[in-house]
Structures are given as C-alpha cells and as structure tokens.
C-alpha cells in the first residue's frame, strides 16, 4: 500500500464506515441489544484507521515531504499540523469509544451515538488535511453537524436540549460568517485553493474583513472569549465522552481551521497572530475567573478549557507573529497534552457522574460536593482525576507543566516585551487556576465520603482502563517531554510555513 493510499484511507475510512456502523448496529440492536455491536465495530474501524495513519504518518516523518492527494480539483495534504490533529483526534476518539460503551450502555440510540462519533472523528482528521478553502468549510460543517446531535444525545433532558439549541444557533451563525469570508476571498483572488490564495492574497480592506470574519466564524467553535458562551452549556450537558471530545479536540480543530484560513491570508497583514495573542490574554483570565466559583464539575472543567485555549493561542500566536518555533511547538504540545488531560478529566468526571448519579437513575449534574471522599470507593478514578486536574494546573511531574513551559520559553525567546508580559500574565493565571483545581483534589481524598458516594455503583472495568491509559500518558510526558517532539516539531514548522514561509 502506498503512503498516499493509506492517507486517503485514514481520512476516508471513519467517514465511510459510519453509515455502516449505524446500519449494522441498528440490526444488532433489534436482534440482541446485549452485544452492543456498534461500539465494537467503531472501535475496530478506529484501530484500523490508526494503522493507515501510521503508514502515512511514518512516510511523512521519514521523508519530510508532505503527502498530497488530489480528488478532482480538491486536494488533501498531510503536513505536521494535520498529522498532529489526526493523531490527537484518533487517540482520544478511540479511548472515548471504549469509555462510552459502559457510559451509555443503558441509553437508547447507541448505534446513532457511535456512528456519529466515528463520523466526527473522521471529519476532524479530514479538516486537518483540507487544502481547499471551501472544502475546509465542508469538513468543518460536517464535524459541527455530527456534534450538534451528539450534544443533545440525552434528548429527554431539558438542559441537554437547551445546550444543543444554543450550540447549534451560535455555531450556525459562525458558519455563515465563514461562508461570507470565503465569498470575499473568492472574489478577491478568484481561487479557493489555499496555496493559490496564499500567493494571490494582497493587503486590501476586503481581505482584512475576510480575516476578521474567519476569526469570528471559526472562533465560535474554538471558544474565543466572548464567543465562548455555548461552550460551558454544551460541554456540561453532552454525554461525558462527547464532552471529552469537544473539549479535548473539537475546539482545537476549530483553531486549526482558523489557522489554515488565516495562514492563507498571511500576506494581508501581520496582525492575525497579534489578534490571537489578544484573545489569548482574555481567554486565560475569563476562563479562570469563571471557573473559580463554579460548583458543577463538568461546567468547571468546561470553563477551564477556555483558559487552556488561551495558553494554546499564546503559543500559536507567538509562532505566527514572530516565527518562534518553540512557541509554536509549545502551542501544539499543549494541544496534545490538553487533549489528554482534559479528556481524562472529563472521562473521570463522567465516570463518577455515571456511578453516582446515572446508574441510580438520577439526572442531576455532578457537583463538587459529590466528590467528597470519592477516593474511598473509587481509588483509581480519584487518582486519575487528580492527575488530570493537577496536570491542568501545570504542576510537575505532569504533562501540563512541560507543555506550558515550552510555550513560556518560546515566548521569552522572542524577546518581544509584549509577548514576555503575556507569558508572565499566563504564569499568574496558572497560579490562579490552582485556586479551583486544588480544592477538587482535596475533596476526592476526604475521609468522610458523601452520602451519594456510599450509594454509588461499582466502576465498570472499561472506564477504569481508559482512565489508567490516559493517566499514564500524562505522567510519562511529564517526565520525558521530548517524547512528543517528533510530532510537535513538524507541526510547528508547518505553522511557521503557513504564516511566514
């Protein structure tokens, strides 16, 4: 199999397989609902996809030539950013699929869930690889459509529906703005191919407007403050596996889409990166303050995603403005580590939500008081949750410390006073964030378990396994951060090419 074929399969397999998963799952559901065939099928597809991605990725990494596959006039390109996003999406997606088996075992519509989850994973891989402005939008829209349905999966709960409505409306509005921007770019350059646009896009008011519309349009999905208002609702109401996906990779995929679009306009102005840095500052502060007094666990984690998006923007923005490779690599490293840590945090919170509430047929949200003394009954889950939130708080020896460090180092290396000030501000925010992460850990290790913990159901094995795998990843990357260099380095170079080369 050639690398190009493998790449095409890696992009196409999950997308093509999702209707099959639905159909077979549907039939199996009628025949014997116990087997839950859709889940295993989805897992199989994702593992196979990992194999194809491995072939394509290793070809790219060994030859340093981007893979380019053309389908008609539209092409897909595997560069550093695409590979990084694909690996993050696929790895987290596979674990979430494993986790979701028990988590939604009792809901109806499981085959819908797994089919759409697989499709969403596939569309995100495609989104990372899109090399055509309009095609980028199509992938983006497909991803969004899948996620609307998944967010409102608990269709009999008013809050989930409300979150779904808000998510849908705000996302759709963002989509429209992106389309307008595409229209402007198309008018001005006469092309949709990102490479051709890169050459043709010259400074003009029209293109500035297009860039602004891209930032706002894609910014809705990547949760730039103040476009973030849908996020705490959707992330807290979605099934926990989907929360992990949304927070861990979907908002980052939105960012990648934005970077691709803005990168094509890099000749228009150097201010794109500076704007991202501005959003970085606001995101960090607002996210942390909003989380500080939050009492619902999943909502708290959702707000913390805002501040982590701020760190990522800091790295990526400094890479775009100054061309600092360490910054960019740090930003992408943080995308990876955040996917792991936030994924783990949501899965752990989801596991507790499942055992303490859902398994007892109660639909209340998980509040911080429910965590009291959870380590008594769920030692591994409590440990995993602690690893996740302490990592998010940037404490060593966990992965979050190292990725933040890389972002900070890159910022200082630019020698730019504004960026250095922003790094110090980010450090302050990191300290502030401990004000809400640390008490969560405290609660988990209280001696006197909350009443609800004592009535909790046992933890399903598959959930524990996924959490252990992710915890190991967070710890290992914390001890040996350069393990991710092979992935973040090429991604950073791709970003610098986008904005400078």
């Amino acid at each position, binding site marked *: 199999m050639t690398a190009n074929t493998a790449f095409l399969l890696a992009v196409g397999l999950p997308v093509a397989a999702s209707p099959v998963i639905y159909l077979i799952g549907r039939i199996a559901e009628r025949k014997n609902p116990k087997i839950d065939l859709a889940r295993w099928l989805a897992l199989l597809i994702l593992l196979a996809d990992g194999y194809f991605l491995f072939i394509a990725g290793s070809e790219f990494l060994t030859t340093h030539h981007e893979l380019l596959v053309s389908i008609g006039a539209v092409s897909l390109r595997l560069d550093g950013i695409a590979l990084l996003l694909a690996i993050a999406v696929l790895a987290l997606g596979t674990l979430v699929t494993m986790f979701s088996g028990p988590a939604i075992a009792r809901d109806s519509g499981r085959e819908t869930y797994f089919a759409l989850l697989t499709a969403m994973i596939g569309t995100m891989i495609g989104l990372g690889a899109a090399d055509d402005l309009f095609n980028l939008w199509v992938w983006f829209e497909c991803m969004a459509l899948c996620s609307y349905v998944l967010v409102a999966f608990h269709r009999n709960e008013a809050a989930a529906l409300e979150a779904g409505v808000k998510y849908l409306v705000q996302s759709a509005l963002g989509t429209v703005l992106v389309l307008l921007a595409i229209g402007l770019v198309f008018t001005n350059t006469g092309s949709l191919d990102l490479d051709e646009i890169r050459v043709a896009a010259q400074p003009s008011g029209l293109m500035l407007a297009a860039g602004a519309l891209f930032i706002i349009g894609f910014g809705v999905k990547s949760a730039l403050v103040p476009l973030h208002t849908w996020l*705490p609702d959707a992330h807290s109401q979605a099934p926990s596996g989907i929360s992990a996906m949304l927070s861990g990779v979907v908002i980052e995929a939105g960012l990648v889409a934005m970077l691709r679009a803005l990168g094509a306009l890099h000749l228009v102005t150097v201010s794109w990166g500076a704007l991202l840095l501005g959003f970085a500052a606001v995101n960090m502060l607002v996210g942390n303050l909003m989380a500080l007094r939050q009492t619902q666990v999943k909502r708290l984690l959702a707000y913390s995603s805002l501040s982590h998006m701020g760190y990522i923007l800091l790295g990526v923005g400094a890479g775009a403005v100054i061309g600092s490779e360490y910054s960019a690599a740090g930003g992408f490293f943080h995308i990876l580590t955040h996917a792991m840590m936030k994924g783990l945090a949501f899965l752990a919170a989801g596991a507790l939500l499942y055992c303490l509430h859902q398994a007892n047929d109660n639909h209340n949200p998980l509040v911080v008081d429910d965590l009291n003394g959870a380590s008594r009954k769920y030692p591994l889950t409590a440990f995993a949750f602690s690893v996740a939130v302490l990592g998010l708080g940037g404490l060593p*020896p966990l992965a979050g410390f190292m990725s933040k460090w890389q972002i900070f180092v890159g910022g200082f290396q630019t020698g730019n006073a504004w960026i250095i000030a922003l790094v110090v501000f980010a450090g302050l925010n990191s300290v502030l964030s401990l*004000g809400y992460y640390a008490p969560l850990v405290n609660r988990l290790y209280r001696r006197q378990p909350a009443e609800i913990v004592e009535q909790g159901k046992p933890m399903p094995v598959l959930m524990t396994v996924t959490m252990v795998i992710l915890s190991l990843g967070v710890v290992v990357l914390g001890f040996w951060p350069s393990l991710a260099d092979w992935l973040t380095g090429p991604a950073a170079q791709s970003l610098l090419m986008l904005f400078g080369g």
Partner: protein
Amino acid sequence: MAELLILLTIGLPWLGALFCWAAGDRHPRLQHGLAVAFSLAAGIAALLLIPFGKDQVLITLSVGGAFGNFTFSPDGLGVFLAAVATVIGSLAVIFSVDYMRSEDQLGRYYAFVLFFIGAMVGLVLTTNLLLMFAFWEITALTSYALISFHNDDLKAVAGGIKALIITQFGGLGLLIGALVLFANTGSYDILTIIANPGILPAGALAWMAFGCLAAGAAKSAQFPFQTWLPDAMEAPTPVSALIHAATMVNAGVYLLARFFPAFEGVPGWREAVMAVGMLSALLAAVMAIFATDLKRVLAYSTVSQLGYMVYAVGAGGIFAAQFHLLSHSVFKALLFLGAGAVIHSVGTRDMRQMGGLGKNMPFVRLVFVIGALALAGLPVLNGFWSKELILEAGLAHGNPLWMLFVMLVVSGLTAFYSFRMVWLVFYGQPRAELHAHDAGPAMKVALAPLAIGTLTTWLLAGSFSRLLSESLPAHQIAAHSTGEILLEVLTAPITLIALLVIALGLVCWWQRDRLAGVKRALTGLQITATNSFGFEAVNRAVVLGAQNSAEKLRSTQTGVLGWNVAYLVIALIGVLAILLLGVGLP
C-alpha cells in the same frame, strides 16, 4: 559510583512512594515498614554521596529542544542539603510510626512524604534550572498535599491552598529567571551562569536576580510572603518538622546562596536580600513573642531564623548562612518533633492550656530544652556558633551597620520567646486537666539523634567549610579548620555583644512580672503582631477581590441566547475596529 548514588537518593524515595501507595491502606504496618526502609536507604545513599562532593556534572540526560539537558551534579552545597533532607526525612518518617499510628490513609501520607524527599534531593542536586523549577514545584505540591492531609478540616484545606498559591506566586520569579537564562544563552545550565554572569546582559541578569529573590522569599516564607508558613502548621507535626522547618523552606536560602556569585554584582540586590532577611527576622520574632499556639511559635521562629540565613547570604556570608542552615535544620526538627510528641500526648496546641508537662514527659522536656537553647543561641550548642558567624558576616565591609543592630536585637527577642515557650509548656503549674505521657519508642529513636546533633554538629565546621570551599570555586569560600572557626567566633567582639543581648532577653523573661508596665505599653504592638502586621488583611483582600470579580463576571453568562449572539456581534465589531485602528486600510 556517584552517578548511581545520585539516582538512588532521588529514586529510592520515589519508588518507596509508589510502594506505599500501592500497598493499600489495609496494611498500615507494611506501609510504616516500607516508608522507614526506603527513607533510611535514601539517607544512607545521601551520606555516601558526601565524599563525592565535587563541582562537576555527573549525569546528563539529553532531552533537547526547549527543555535543555537534564543534568545532576553533586557539589558541596548539593550533597550537604541532600543529606539533610534524607537524614531528617528518615527521622521524621520514623517519628511518624508512632505519631501517625492511629491515622487513616497512611498510603497518601507516606507517599507524599517520600515523594517530597526525592524531589528535595533532586532540587539541590540538579544543575538544570528547568529541572530545578520542576522539583521546586513538586515540593510545593507535596507540601500542599501534606498541609491539607486532614482534608475534612477546613482550616487544613485553607492553609494548604494558601501555601500553594503564595509559593507558586513567588515561584513565578524563578520561572522568569529560568526563562531569561534560556532565552539569552540557549541553555539552563546553572554552573555556566555562576562561573560567568557576564554572559547575560545586565538588564536580564537583574530580572533573574530579583526574580530568584522573590521565589526564594516565597519558598522560605520571607517578607512579604511569610504569611503562609504559620497556616501551614495544620499539617501533621512530622511534616512540619521535615518540610516546614528543616528542608523545603531552606530551598529559598539555597537558591540565593547558589546564585550568589552570579547576582552579587547586580546593583541593589545584596541590599534587598539583607533587607528581606532582616525584616522577616524582626517581624516574625515579634509575632513569636505574642503567639499562644505552640506550633505557631515554632513557625514564626522558623521564619525568623530563615531571615538570619537570608540576611547572611545578602551580607556575603555564604558559609555562615549554610552553616546556620545545618544547625537550624537539626535543632528546629528537634523542636518540632518534640512539640509533636507533646501535642500527640495532650491533644492540644494551645500553650495556655499546657504547663508543668515536664514532670510526665522528662525525655521530651530534656530534648526540647536542648533545642530551645540552641534556638536562643546559647553556647556551646550548634545554634550559637552559626548565629555568631552570621552576625560576624554582617560586619563585613560595606554592609549597613543598622541592619546588624536590628539582627542583634532580634537575637534578644529570640532568647525571650524561646524561654517563654519552654516555660509555658514544661514548667510552672498545670493550667488544664491534661493527661500527658512521654514519647513512644519510635519517637525517641527519632528525637535522640537530633538532640545529639544539636549538641555536636558545630564540630563539623571545619570539614563543612572545606567541602564548600573545594566544590564551589565561584563562591570563594575560604577553608578553615574547626579550631580556627571556633577561635574566630570566640574572640570576636560581636559575640560578646550578642551574648549580652541574649542574656538581656533572658532577664526580661525572668523579670517579666516587674516589666508589667512595659507590657501594657506594648499592648498596641501585641494587637498589631497578633494580626500579623496587616499581612493577613492583604491576603484576605486579594482573595476576596478575586472571588468577587469572579462572581461578578459570572453574571455575563446570562443563559439567554440573544445575549450570546450579541457577544458575537460585539466581538466582530471589536476585531474590525482593532483592524481599522491598528492596521488601517491599505
């Protein structure tokens, strides 16, 4: 050989932490055993490492990129502190066998204690500033986890968070220092910058110097960050002895001493360091005089004694600072563990309820008095020699004499509160119905070596000065024999003055009833001091400010779709306006 010993000293406690956690809380005896075994083994490894104390990098793990090389080097400063951390660490663990006997969740307790010991060793042995910062943060994490060990107690939780946030806030200074170093030199190597500070531009060096001062002050609970240490006393007492008296709080002093050759040329840095040390010593001593909680008195005295060390570093007396660090680690660990034995026995920390406990706890009284005398600085205990050396360093050319005067006054105050504490706890009439019993066997095993150490560690002065002198060329520490050092102290006029001041402090305590008038006159000071000179109010204001602004900001999440869309339009307007004003139309 030395490479292996370094890895063992860091790795054994961490391995032990894993085992203790994995052993499970159903097997407390196994956990006690594992913890003692691993901490003792680490202590032995650290002691064996001392002869290898040289200035040379022994372990290099090439991580590359933004992370530099992870390097470790056993120089004099490093091996000495590693030995202190592991030896006192293992004594604290042994003490815990009795102290924590009836406690729950021992796995978490021992895992964090051992995790701390390993991290502390790593902190002092590494020569990579990134790694140093990482270990720095791990010690903060473990300190936090252990302060909040009694998670159901709101005070313990609050104290833990406070310590974590304040030390992390100061830690930003070290972060800035490390980033400045890497941005300018492309490496995190500490030895290079110490040997040749000129490789950094003057401005960058100043940022690094004052950043490290902030970090050191926060870690060592110095002015203006001192408020976290008294609240950290909610931790189990062996933890207070180990982390909040003998080791972690020394990391700040270590940092300043380590970088002294690099920073001493930065204008104003030495003066700032001395001022920080002096203010901390003075304020904390005054607070200790009025405090009524036994552990808090010890905490204040720790801040005060650390102030002496910081002052000494600023004054250029690196050897004096490190020597006092050694003495203080030993006698303060002794005092804390002694206090732990008392608290474990009577179940309260309030000195007003104690009194006359000496009759039932003769052993604890004996060792506690030894420690207190060392704290007061009476000859011939170890605290005497090292404190005199610090005062002498204050006399060095160019140091402001008024600061030295303040430090002399503080030594009088120290004597005063040391005697007050001993008296209130062990002597006089019992003030409450307390059933005291003497220390358990494991406690005695831990206390005895510390008491002996308090009586004898000053004999190490000569070899200690040789160790530092040989392995730290940039610090320019002269090697002297023990005899020379002792003679120097004894013949110095300042020693006599200091002894007079200490005696004055003693007399004041003895004649306290006659000084009732003075006491009344000082009521205002007492009120200010028990309110921590307003620092607590500042802390509270900051916390309240953050929480209020958070609460206000939360109302922006209206949950109304229309407003959500409005924010989007506003953001669009904002971005367009920025582009219009910032970039302009081409």
